[in-house]
Every structure is written in C-alpha cells, then in structure tokens.
C-alpha cells in the first residue's frame, strides 16, 4: 500500500492563554502580573487518510477540529507530534506543498471583495502557476459543476452568502488540489445550496482522486459524503471508523415511527415517546428490545405505518460524548 495522503501521529497543540477576572482591579493587577492558562487544543491526535478518501471530522465547538486543520495546512506549528500531508511536512510551507492543497475556512478569504470573482480566479491562476489551457478547462468545469453561470462576472460584494461560498470553493479548487481541508463549507447556506455543494465535493473527489477532510456541524454533510468519521472532543479522538460502526457501537436504542389508525392511543408502555404529530408517534426503544416491542405493537394495534430506524447521527454522537465524559 502506498503512502497515506495524511499521516498524523501524536499531534499536540498547546495554547498559552492569558486570563483574568472581570473588573478594574483585576485589569490593574494584570498590568503587573499576568496569569496564563495552558489550553490543550489538540492532545495526542493520530490518524491516517488514504488518497481519495473523504473523512468527516466531527466534534463540538472548541474540540480541536479547526486547530488540527490549521496544523495540517501548515498555518499553525504543532507543539508536538508528527504530521505529513502528501508526503510533505506542512509547517515547512514548501511551495510544492501549498500548490497541492487547499483549506477553505468559514470566513472565506480567497476573493477580492470589490472585483468580479473572475479576476480573483485569474490571480489564483498566476499564484498557483496553472497553465492557461488547464486554467480555462478547470474554471469552465467548476463553473459548470457549481452552476456559477453569471456569478463570476458580478462583483463579489453583490453576491449572496451562498453564491459567495460557491465561488469561494471554486477559487480554492482552480489549482486542482490533491488535498482539500474544508472547515464548515456549508455553514449558513440554505438546504438546496448545501446539497449542491455536497454533490460537488463528492464529484470533485471522485474526478480528481482528491482526499478531503471535512468539518461540519451539519450531519447531512457527513452522511452524504463520508464513509469514515473521526470524532474529537477536548483535543482527543473519541472515535475513528465507519459511520455505520459508530451507529452500531454507540446507538443503544432504535427509533420506531408508528402511524396509528386512530389517534389518542397511549404508547408509553412500549417505550419512551419522543414526539407525537397527529397519528404519528415516535418511540425510543432499547436496541435489544426492538423486535419484541415491534411485534407487540403489531399485535396490539392497527398500524398504518411502522418504521424502525437508527437514531439521528447527531444523537449518536451525543451518546458518544456522554460515554467519553467522566461521570460526576
């Protein structure tokens, strides 16, 4: 097997953060004696990503996702550990490395605000030394895939958030990076736009065998794109594996969607009633009891519809965090 696209071993990043109490007295004291606290943003993270693989990087705010991404991109120097991306050490910031990767962050910073995106595209062509024929081909392909149409000729300041995000992603991909770090690429976008960007990322990775490491708080992004997820909290990896394994291992219950022939029936004896919407009731039932409960429901009531599903991935991850946290 060849070298992984990303190799991370024992990665650590510690920030020294000044802290003080609120108020004038504390402000004056901090003039003479400043207190610092060490924050272990990333604390011994290890994983590999294979070429062409799309991996979801999940965790709550402050878990260490963006810090890890910044270290992989070479923006931040690790406090310790080993990182290799595309065979390069990112912090060396070699031109050859920067030409082969792209990091798209939430604050979108590829585009010139006052000019049409087409101008920023051309600047990226020059910066990344993309030959003209390849630039035209890639630009046209991106315009087509992301349905950019007339957007690239409008000043960026006149684009909506979603349009800007699409153009931003296109700008980040003009040099056809082999490694793509995406930090919340669909945040703030409407459902249609989210879906389009998801489809595009999958298609880009497939066409160019690009590896993708994606952070997102939208589980729909993760479910649509990633077979594998890495879950991180307090700078430590809690889970690294298939999405299906995550569900199997941590989802201790199933959700039963029951549509009854008549309303008003009390189903609390079958499991925890999570919601009721007219004749439709959602029950949470321990996984081991699901077959029995299902059989009882069918026997006791006239059902118009019955679904048995795993809980939403958000809930599974919540369960994972709960399992990982020390009990009080």
């Amino acid at each position: 097997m060849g070298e992984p696209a990303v190799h991370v071993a024992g990665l650590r990043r510690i920030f020294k953060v000044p802290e003080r109490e609120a108020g004038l007295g504390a402000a004056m004291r901090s003039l003479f004696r400043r207190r610092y606290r060490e924050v272990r943003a990333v604390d011994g993270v290890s994983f590999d990503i294979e070429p062409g693989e799309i991996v979801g990087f999940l965790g709550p705010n402050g878990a260490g996702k963006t810090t890890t991404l910044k270290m992989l991109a070479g923006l931040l120097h690790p406090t310790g550990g080993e990182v290799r991306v595309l065979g390069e050490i990112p912090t060396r910031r070699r031109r050859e490395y920067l030409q082969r990767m792209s990091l798209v962050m939430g604050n979108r910073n590829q585009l010139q605000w006052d000019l049409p995106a087409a101008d920023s595209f051309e600047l990226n062509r020059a910066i990344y030394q993309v030959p003209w024929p390849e630039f035209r081909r890639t630009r046209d392909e991106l315009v087509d895939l992301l349905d950019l149409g007339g957007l690239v000729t409008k000043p960026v300041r006149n684009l909506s958030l979603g349009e800007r995000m699409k153009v931003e992603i296109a700008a980040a991909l003009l040099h056809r990076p082999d490694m793509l770090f995406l930090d919340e690429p669909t945040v703030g976008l409407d459902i249609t736009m989210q879906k389009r960007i998801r489809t595009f990322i999958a298609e880009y990775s497939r066409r160019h065998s690009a590896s993708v490491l994606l952070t997102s708080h939208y589980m729909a992004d993760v479910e649509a794109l990633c077979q594998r997820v890495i879950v991180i909290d307090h700078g430590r990896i809690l889970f690294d594996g298939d999405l299906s394994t995550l569900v199997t291992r941590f989802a201790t219950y199933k959700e039963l969607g029951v549509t009854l022939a008549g309303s008003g029936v009390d189903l609390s004896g079958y499991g925890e009633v999570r919601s009721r919407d007219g004749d439709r009731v959602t029950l949470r039932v321990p996984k081991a009891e699901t077959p029995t409960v299902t059989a009882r429901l069918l026997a006791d009531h006239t059902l118009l519809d019955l679904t048995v599903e795993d809980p939403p991935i958000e809930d599974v991850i919540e369960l994972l965090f709960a399992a990982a946290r020390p009990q009080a």
Partner: protein
Amino acid sequence: MSTRTVSRPRALFDVYRTEARMAVARESQYRMRNVMSLVGFLTEPIVYLAVWTAVANAKGGSVGGYTPGTLAAYFIVWTLVRNMNVVFTPYGFEWRIRSGEMSGRLLRPAHPIHHDLAYFAGWKVVWLAMWLPIAAALVLLFRPVLHPEPLEIAVFAVAIWGAYLVRSLFQWLIGLVTFFTTRVAAIFEIYAVAELMFSGRLVPMSLMPRRVQTVANYLPFKSTFGFPIEALVGQLGTRGLLLGLATQLLWIGVGSGLLALTWRAAVRRYSAVGN
C-alpha cells in the same frame, strides 16, 4: 494537477502583473477616496512649503541654500515621491490578522509581500493619473525652480522605486510584530516620528542640525524621501547620485535579510486567530 514548469522569476512576474492589474481595476472604482487621500497628502507638504518659504523670505530670500523657488520644487517633487512610496502599513497587518485574511495569504504558495508590492505598485498608476493635474496646478501656483539633468531624471526614476522598496520592507518588518503581539500601533508611531525627523520628509535634510544629518546617514529613512527628491531637485552630483542609489540598494539588502529572518520566526509564532 499538471506539472508546473514555469521558471520562478517568470511565475513571479506573472503574479506581479496580474496583481498590479487587479489593483488598477479595483482602485479605479474608488476615485473619490483616492482624490481625498491625495488632498490629504498635499496638506502636509503645502504647510511645510508655506512655513519654509516664510523663513527663507525672512532670511533675505534663502535658507540653507534653498530659495522659495527651489523649496517649491522640493515639496512638489515631495508629493510625487510620497505618492510613489505609499506602502502597506503595519495597521493593515493588525486588521489582516484579526479578520483572518492573513491566514488566507499564508496558504498561498508565494510570500505575501509579493502581493503587497505588486498591488501597491499597480495602485500607483491610479495615483499618478490623479496626481498629474494637481501637480500642474501646484506648479502654476508656486513657480518651482527645477532644471534637472538627464542623469538626475534617470536616477530619480530608479530612486522612487528604490524608496518604495525600502519603505515597504521596513514597514513590513514592523508589521510582522503583529505575528507576536497582534498589536503594533505603538511601534509604528515611533517609526513614523523617526521617519519625519530623519528622512527629509519634514524639511530638506540640509536644513536639519548637523547631528541629525549625521544620524540620518546611518538610518534607512533618507533613502525613502530625501534622496529621491534631492536626486531631482538638489545638487548631488554624479557621485552623490550613485552613492544614494548604492545606499538604497544596501538598505534593500538589509531590509530583505531582516525580513527573511523575522518571517521565519513570525510564521512559527503565528496563532491563526480570526477564523
């Protein structure tokens, strides 16, 4: 991704050309802002010119060898040099870091200073177009005495770009402090005062006390104002002109070296806040 076989100088030239073209396109949209900035730039030399003309008249028609006509020439050329040595200031670094824009620039496979040098060079095209009618009005108003030799014109043409480079490098150097502290205003204030005193910006250096002139010879500031102006309006002679260019070259070397060293340490300290 296809192989990129373009030579480094050619690739950089492409970046400079494209970025400069973007600067012209962008800044042409902000005519009013540029005119206002230009008017702001004019206030400073006109005040200096009025003061020193009054001093020259009070002293019988000249001060330190400068007549009202040569003082007018000095400060009108000053306006051109000032336009040409507008650079990216350390204040901009603070904003770039806080907004996260610096992170975007660090991710590009070219040193960010190239973008600033290219952008501000392109911007000068817009400045220059706006400066020409203003300069014509100043000439009519103040009647400067200016008889440059071809060599002086040639040296001036090179020296204003030298001044631009020296000023860019040293202000970038100060800007890099933001990688360590994220605040740089206080240091930049010191730089600004030093520049006013030792550059020929406030007054031709020959009107300064001897001690100040001596100190100025060991600092980069004179290369950014006094030398290019005097190359055109002064009596530097061939030796003085070439020495001035060599001094600029020296400061470009020193600035580049210091910048390279500081840059290496700065990127290590960069905390990528703002995202």
